């Protein structure tokens, strides 16, 4: 279900009144969960199996982790194995259950129905890991199981084709006859191999819970329904923001107080998001698609304009989604984190990542960059960590080399601006506007790799931009003016003109204008770009 559809409006018209009616009962959490699962399962109900599985396993793993001591304890493994002597009764049950499960799933992996065998093989691996966790009563093992499980889901659905293709190409070039099977052949019961919407978001959110619990940052959530609602909370399930349990779970403890401001703020956020998506992103996509789908047909000005347009399209599309998500959550009394903070106003690449997809960049910072050592071990290791983090970030966005290059370009960009910022001249003498434009230009350049259909297309676009002809530019002025107006607004908002923008007349005028514009100009919009991630 998409936010900008009448179906969603109808959905909300049912969900909200019932939610408010249930606010004094215990039923509001189950209702929110039902609403979230309905929202997610609207397109493909069987994707819910994946969300439910990921949620259930992480809930169980943390419960088991909670039964294990923080400090590693010595035990007699021979006695534990032969006499099943465990300090904790739950671990004993878990051990027996997982061993039995491993044997059964292994059996099915070898002798079960053909279409179930790959799934059972994977299940036996997870269960075996769990058996090891129960046997050793080791918190770290439970964490590993959670990481392996979530990444296995992610890798299979998102990257398996990419890896298979590349490895098979490599094997062929080495004249090895062995080939990896197509991932689509590994699906249980012959189900269709399709990337489930928002898989990267809910797996990351669920994973952050297990990691934070392992680190002792959050308490264990004992209510499964509450935890499931946290993972599947419908405003942010499909494209974030990727919330943390520490921020979000406490909001589900008791029904939030709803004030009039919840509605006015929620509506304000939703309107801006809707405008970004329907009036701007969808319009820009028409031009971007046309140019990027056949770059050979276009010359330098069109390619340049399309790259510029894509930079804004992806911003409007993604930030529009999160604005709407935050607005809907706000109406229900929940606060979702800020995900975009006018990123094209950034004066450095580091700052850009502090403003762009904040929930993801902080996720990578907290769970990848800092564990790798962060910036604590000297410049060289800092940059290594940076490159590793951005390599993973690139891959997170998509299974293609173009995304990897995009990520690495950003790592290089951060490195360069970080070094530049060390010089007093750059810090104090270079005007802010120049820095902003330089960062924007660099980001646009990197977007070429992000948007291009292939590496060959990306290089073609770059070479044409710099060497192509400027005969008869086919650049829609109306589109450029529209984007320029928004950019100008952002500059004004971050300057002393902010007070003028905050006056009642301007706010009322702009809101009315946006609604009327939406009524006249909008088309039925497609899905959001970030759904594919």
């Amino acid at each position, binding site marked *: 279900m998409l936010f900008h559809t009448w179906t969603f409006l109808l959905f909300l018209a049912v969900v909200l009144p019932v939610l408010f009616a249930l606010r004094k009962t215990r039923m509001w959490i189950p209702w929110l969960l039902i609403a979230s699962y309905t929202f997610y399962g609207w397109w493909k109900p069987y994707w819910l199996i994946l969300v439910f599985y990921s949620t259930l396993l992480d809930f169980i793993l943390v419960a088991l982790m909670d039964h294990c001591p923080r400090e590693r304890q010595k035990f007699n493994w021979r006695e534990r194995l032969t006499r099943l002597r465990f300090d904790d009764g739950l671990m004993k049950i878990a051990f027996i259950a997982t061993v039995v499960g491993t044997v059964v799933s292994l059996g099915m992996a070898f002798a079960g129905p053909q279409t179930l065998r790959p799934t059972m093989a994977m299940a036996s691996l997870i269960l075996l890991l769990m058996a090891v966790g129960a046997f050793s009563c080791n918190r770290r093992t439970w964490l590993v199981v959670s990481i392996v499980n979530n990444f296995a889901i992610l890798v299979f659905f998102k990257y398996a084709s990419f890896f298979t293709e590349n490895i098979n190409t490599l094997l062929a070039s080495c004249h090895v006859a062995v080939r990896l099977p197509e991932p689509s052949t590994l699906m249980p019961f012959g189900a269709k191999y399709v990337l489930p919407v928002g898989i990267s978001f809910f797996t990351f959110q669920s994973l952050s819970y297990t990691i934070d619990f392992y680190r002792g940052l959050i308490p264990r959530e004992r209510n499964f329904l509450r935890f499931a609602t946290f993972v599947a909370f419908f405003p942010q399930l499909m494209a974030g923001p990727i919330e943390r349990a520490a921020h979000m779970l406490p909001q589900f403890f008791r029904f939030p107080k709803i004030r009039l401001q919840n509605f006015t703020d929620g509506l304000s956020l939703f309107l801006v998001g809707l405008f970004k998506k329907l009036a701007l992103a969808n319009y820009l996509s028409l031009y971007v698609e046309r140019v990027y789908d056949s770059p050979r047909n276009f010359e330098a000005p069109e390619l340049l304009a399309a790259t510029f347009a894509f930079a804004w399209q992806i911003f409007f599309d993604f930030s529009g989604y999160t604005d709407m998500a935050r607005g809907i959550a706000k109406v229900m009394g929940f606060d979702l984190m800020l995900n975009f903070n006018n990123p094209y106003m950034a004066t450095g690449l580091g700052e850009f990542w502090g403003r762009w997809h904040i929930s993801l960049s902080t996720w990578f910072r907290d769970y990848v960059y800092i564990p790798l050592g962060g910036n604590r071990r000297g410049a060289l290791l800092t940059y290594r960590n940076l490159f590793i983090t951005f390599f993973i970030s690139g891959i997170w966005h998509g299974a293609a080399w173009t995304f990897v290059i995009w990520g690495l370009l950003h790592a290089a960009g951060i490195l360069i601006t970080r070094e530049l910022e060390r010089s007093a001249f750059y810090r104090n003498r270079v005007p802010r506007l120049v820095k902003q434009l330089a960062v924007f230009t660099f980001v646009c350049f990197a977007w070429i790799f992000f948007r291009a259909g292939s590496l060959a297309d990306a290089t073609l676009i770059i070479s044409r931009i710099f060497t192509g002809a400027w005969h008869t530019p086919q650049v829609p002025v109306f589109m450029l003016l529209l984007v320029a107006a928004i950019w100008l607004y952002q500059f004004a908002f971050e300057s002393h003109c902010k007070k003028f*923008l905050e006056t009642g007349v301007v706010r009322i005028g702009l809101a009315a204008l946006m609604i009327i514009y939406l009524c006249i100009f909008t088309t039925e919009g497609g899905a959001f770009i970030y759904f594919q991630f």
Partner: protein
Amino acid sequence: MADEKPTPAPAETRFVNAMRLSARQWLAVAAIVMLVLSVTPWLWKKIERFDTGADYRIPYAISKDYWLYERRLDRLAPTDIAMIGDSVIWGEYVRPDGTLSHFLGEQSGQPGKFVNAGVNGLFPLAFEGLVGDYASAIRNRKLIVHLNLLWMSSPKADLSTSKEERFNHADLVAQFGPRIPCYKADFNHRLSVTVERHFTFMQWANHLQIAYFGQKNILAWTLDDEGASPPELPNAYKNPLQQITLTVPPEPAADPERGPASPRHKPWSTTGEGTTRFEWVAPDLSLQWAAFQRLVKLLQSRGNDVLVVVGPFNEHSMSAENRPAFRRLRDGAAEWLTQNRIAHVIPEPLPSALYADASHPLTEGYRMLAARLIRDATFQKWMTAR
């Protein structure tokens, strides 16, 4: 990545623009928007020139402009008789002065009395929606309604097949029931169509796009490439506002597709006899017939004095063994009309050479049909009745 301290949860919702409106400001916005949305279509009717001179019919290119259709009906004189129907009434192969409404006016000595309110490509299931949502202006009037049995000539034409079909005026058919099995639009599309049909401002916005921007969304129009290779964007530097000439596009002065000079304007066959075997749909199974029945009942409930003209279908095009089935169908329709005390005329088929296809007459065919109608006793009685 530079800051290694975990980000604390924000105390309250952060805004990164100034668009945070208070309740009072939202009320003001609602008032402005309501005012604009309700006044604009009304004001537009006052300022947009809409030339509905002699024999006007909604041009083919803008036949999906239902807001304009409604406006057209709004402008009828009290004594005018609207003729509603599909392209047989509209005149698929003929010029505006070659239509049935033109000849009825001419031959009855009351030019302009019969108004061509036909819509190209309309069928009873869509007709029902058009009349239901866009034709309230013709309440309590005399109306001539055309029944084209072509829409029952096969399950496909009847829209009763289960295989998905794309058809004209899909936005006019009932979106949520009665069910049309071959119409497979998703739930959201059906919902948005239903909303649009009840929201005048959106109909007006649709009118803008159809009448001035070549049936395109205004934004899409700025990127229209007309399929040229290498791609060109002829509208890239045009001001969209300049497109809005405030004059509804008239019928093209010289339409190569229509009129006696057009290569399409010719008899359907050189021999005059055909062998087509239509798979007529039984009336109790036909969705189109059921829709037509509901349509006539709706018009009656609105105080309309309805005269139904059935056909005349081109029976020459059918094989001999196919004709009895057709006649049973036609007579069944007539029987239902009689039972429901609805005035109706079933003109004799025209000579074969006066048809352009299975149901559309040529200019001379319309002239002859008008003459027959005027001579018809039922027609005369209906015309003189108050």
